[in-house]
């Protein structure tokens, strides 16, 4: 199984530790992982802003970098969803469609493809899980509070394999944090208020860490937490799954 590691641009530039943790989690499972070094961005920032027609360059670059792999794994629900829903390459339409099918978000890959049952991770902290919307409602990583169906959660089932970790309950288990790509600057007031409210839910329930499958949501929450001089920290789920002792 030949896995291509898709590291979103902002993780590559601002949160390299998340990319490192993702790679190490996968390699520890004995998987062969390659990071194609000419990758940039999936094109989502343009597309969500109404400029999907400007994503030809990024899409083509994505196809060039990733078409040869059996699976493509990414530590971001949002970027994965963009590829799955919108990747198009006029030069190589079939390759683009093929990539859509074989791209997976990290926790769904670990759960559905690898079938991970056990992890050797230890993280002795109270953790709140932020359900990023695109992972939740777009990729179906967990049961959504609006729908009437039995509960399940791929990120949560992995977190319960981490020893010492205490998952806190939230009042609103899957409300949006307000990041929303360029929404966070064009609708600054509402975006920040949504973030503050999400943080309050986590901190009121004693979270030491807020984790999630999307670093972009966590980046927004981190910005607010640091401004508030809060002790609560954000951590990507890959970093928790990679907290190996001994």
């Amino acid at each position, binding site marked *: 199984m030949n896995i291509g590691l898709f590291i979103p641009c902002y993780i590559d530039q601002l949160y390299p530790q998340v990319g490192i943790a993702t790679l190490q989690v996968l390699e520890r499972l004995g998987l062969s992982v390659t990071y194609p070094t000419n990758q940039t961005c999936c094109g989502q920032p343009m597309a969500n802003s109404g400029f999907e027609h400007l994503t030809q360059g990024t899409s083509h670059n994505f196809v060039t970098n990733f078409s040869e792999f059996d699976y493509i794994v990414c530590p971001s629900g949002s970027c994965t969803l963009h590829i799955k829903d919108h990747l198009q390459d006029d030069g190589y339409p079939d390759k683009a469609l093929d990539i859509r099918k074989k791209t997976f978000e990290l926790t769904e890959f670990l759960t559905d493809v690898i079938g991970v049952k056990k992890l050797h991770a230890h993280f002795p902290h109270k953790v709140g899980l932020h359900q990023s919307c695109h992972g939740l409602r777009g990729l179906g990583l967990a049961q*959504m509070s609006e729908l009437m169906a039995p509960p399940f959660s791929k990120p949560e089932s992995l977190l319960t394999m981490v020893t010492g970790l205490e998952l806190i309950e939230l009042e609103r288990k899957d409300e949006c944090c307000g990041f929303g790509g360029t929404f966070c600057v064009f609708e600054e007031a509402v975006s920040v208020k949504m973030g503050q409210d999400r943080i309050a839910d986590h901190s009121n329930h004693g979270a030491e860490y807020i984790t999630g499958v999307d670093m972009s949501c966590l980046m927004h929450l981190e910005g607010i937490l640091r401004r508030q001089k809060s002790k609560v920290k954000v951590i990507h789920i890959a970093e928790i799954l990679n907290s190996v002792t001994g």
Partner: protein
Amino acid sequence: MNPQNKTHSELAKKFNRDVERVNWHDKTLWFVREKRDKSAHQLAEWEQLREAASQIKNNVLSNLHNYLIEFEKNALNHGIHVHWASTAQEHNEIVHSIIKNHGVNNMVKSKSMLTEECGLNEYLHQQGINVVDTDLGERIVQLANEPPSHIVLPCIHWKKEEIGELFHQHLGTPKGNADPQFLTAAARKHLREHFLTSRVALTGVNFSVAETGEIIVCTNEGNADLGVQLADVHIACMGIEKIIPKRKHLSVFLRLLARSATGQPITTYSSHFQKPREGQEMHIVLVDNGRSERLASDDFRNALKCIRCGACFNTCPVYRRSGGHSYHTAVAGPIGSILAPGFDMAKNADLPFASTLCGSCTNVCPVKIDIHDQLYKWRQVLVKNGHTTASKKTGMNVMSLVLSLPMVYRFSGTVGRWIIRTLPFIVNNKFNPWYKQREMPKASTQSFRSWYLNQRKHGQ
């Protein structure tokens, strides 16, 4: 409605100046969303009901012409006058001509968002006709000279103390009395006079049945019934998409509507009007106002399935924290944001962007409208039609160029991180909307890529 021509973002910013009010607004509507969840959870077949409703509506949209003709035929057989209005203006003129024919200048109205969409009150006011909205929430915003901020809970943005003051000014209730029961009784007394003296009553339509030619109006206060039963003339105004094929289909919608809207199993009254009572005159105005055009669009026709339950408002984290008036349109919230650009792209170009695309609206929708996908699609249409700013366009072009060329991307990333680290004042200032209430991310010295290459070089 939006005299200053302000955008959603500007109006939402204003709304957010009063944090306590935002918190209260958010919690009040979230409470309604939770009531919806609880009542939906009580029906094991909830998701099947949604699917059935969605499919019935799909059938309606594909056969709209035939159902409308069938409906008209049956309504005419029952002695109802049927009018067709292709625009809001035509609708207003038809209603006005009916009122004029009866030589009156007063009308009571209940339960119609369509007349809000058409601006009927304003039009009739200019013609010297006084319209009294009889539903309590509608009456409150009418007295305050405001549009509704929510399609089901029109004055949800008003606190009871403020309503007490409004009633004190308009209805002469004692100053400082904000007891809801007292205020409701005062409104009831005030409205009674209008009910008793109005010869014309206008209602909206929740559903109309092609098979029987009847209309159904769902209310909690019973004002539609009171108005219609006391008046000589009943005018019912409906968008052409409100039709359903058979009476048996109504059960699906009645079970979904109130549960989605407020968490009630059913509205207090589901009133069927099939023919005028003896001596009464009944009119139905079928309104297109852009609906046929919408029907022709593969991407956006689905929005015509809407039954106006307001569930998408209550669940929307942006609506709850920006208030209905920030949408500057008759129907606010997520559904309003996909309907409004269809009426006027230039005026409503901001609305599809007033969303994080979180998708909760789509999940609560009882007729499965793909609301958040349509928001995404409207964004593409708006930009293609030039409804964007020059700065955004330039920014996106630069971003696209940088991200399409791996070497330029890497160079820009390195420079960007160096700036954040060494010259933070370039980004940490008031011109950066991110920085206003958030710290910038800490910039690491190396990218993931450089770490990776380094690792691989050392054979790790």
